[in-house]
């Protein structure tokens, strides 16, 4: 693997050292989650095989470091691709996934953070990447993940008076 990704991986893995206050993300009750990735906690920052996964670097950071990660990637010329969530209902966690692309090099980086499902809050990165604004709004719509500091979290794709979050796994459609 190229030196660029290696250097980025080194820098990112420094972020992944859990802050003392927050529990490490891999702390989740493993085994219950359907994902094998969660079944045996992977290293928080790993270089992945593009041919198998579709991205080059997979970083799991503590939830309070996503903005730092965004700053690092911004400084290295990455652009935001999308922000989305995954509801790991079995382990009571929400995963927020940030996809980054590099406009002049073929690198793709995935940054993840796991937050508790019942208090789904995470810092916004929309001041670093304005493109994240809409993606975060959409993620709030679908998952009820609150992005702290986001300018406007009103329903975006859902109707403006909606109070449901359809991609949460415990969502039941109205009768």
């Amino acid at each position, binding site marked *: 693997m190229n030196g660029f990704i290696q250097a980025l991986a080194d820098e990112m893995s420094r972020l992944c050292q859990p802050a003392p206050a927050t529990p490490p993300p891999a702390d989740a009750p493993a085994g219950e989650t359907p994902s094998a990735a969660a079944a045996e906690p992977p290293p928080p920052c790993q270089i992945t095989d593009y*041919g198998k996964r579709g991205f080059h670097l997979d970083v799991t950071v503590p939830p309070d470091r996503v903005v730092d990660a965004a700053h690092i990637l911004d400084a290295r010329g990455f652009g935001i691709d999308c922000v989305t969530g995954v509801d790991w209902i079995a382990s009571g966690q929400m995963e927020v996934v940030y996809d980054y692309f590099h406009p*002049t090099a073929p690198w793709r980086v995935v940054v993840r953070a796991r937050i508790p499902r019942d208090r789904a809050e995470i810092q916004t990165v929309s001041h670093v990447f304005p493109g994240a604004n*809409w993606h975060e709004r959409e993620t709030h719509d679908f998952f009820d993940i609150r992005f702290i500091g986001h300018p406007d979290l009103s329903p975006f794709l859902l109707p403006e008076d909606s109070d449901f979050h359809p991609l949460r796994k415990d969502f039941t459609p109205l009768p």
Partner: protein
Amino acid sequence: MSVPPLELIKGPDETFILNLGPQHPATHGVLRIKLTMDGEYVTRAEPVPGYIHRMHEKMGENRTWNQFLPNTSRIDYLSAMAYTHAFVGVAERAAGIEVPPRAEYIRVITSELNRISSHLVWFGAFLLDLGGFTPLLYAFDDREKILDLLEGITGSRLTYCYYRFGGVCNDVDDAFLRGTKEFVAHMRPRMKLYRDLVTDNIILRKRLTDIGHISADMCRRYGATGPVIRGAGVAYDTRKVEPYSAYREFDFDIPVFPEADSMARYLVRMEEIVQSLRIIEQAVDRLPDGPFIAPKMPKVMKVPPGDYFYATEAARGRFAVRAVSDGKEIPYRLKLRAPSFSNLSLFEEASRGMMLPDALAMLGSLDLVIPDIDR
């Protein structure tokens, strides 16, 4: 009278709010943009999407991998092939399926034909935005030929469901290959016609040159891809930077125009049609023999657990599918990353201070498909 006086509908400081859409001729669908206007100048533009939100991502969690296939072509109905390609691609990547080379070539041919037809629709609709009605019909005339060709092998004209996990559902026949060759030969002089009649028109040039600047850095910060970022001077094309399918084997260029204005985006798309013709020509000439679908494909697709990502270059930019699988028949989570969504998100910043006709010209040059934004 129950209607409030006009003064009350105004915004602050001599501005007023103009509600563009959801049924406005320039939004090509049900996009609504709340414009705060100072006279004819746009001071703030706030797009309000979601009018045809269909929650494809939730549908993806409710049906098997195979059952979701037709959905993919209904996200961006103009560029359906690339969308299906990304979806079958992510499953093939996850399950480690080897796609036979003939199938990859057929996918390339049909994807590129679809790209040309999408660009032709954009070309007509964009000129319609600018008040030129006639090119639309010329473009549709050419598009008709593509639709006929694709109908011959896929059975549908717009929302194709042609790709299958491991290949395609039908082999191409001689009529299709012959027709494709004829189309390529027919299209080259047509591109010259379009250049003479439309591109070199002085009114068009004046309307687009130096209008609607979208810099490369803005594209990066907003995640805009496709002709938008290539019109900003960045040679970013998924077909080249992350070569998927058989694109590695073809000789083609990525058109890049550094002016970053509406004209640059226009020229990128027109040049892309030419490049797509080149790819099609090479692919038809070198089409390998062999099966058109991988042998022994399971009836019900199952994907090993994990999360996977697969991106394709659709006509509007990079479409990507992030699939999270738990090993069952039904995907655990499907994220559809739509290019129009990111491309539109920069409109608010880029349109500030523009005049209304210029802002609408820029909106047209972004080439939005509203179902793609709303999903």
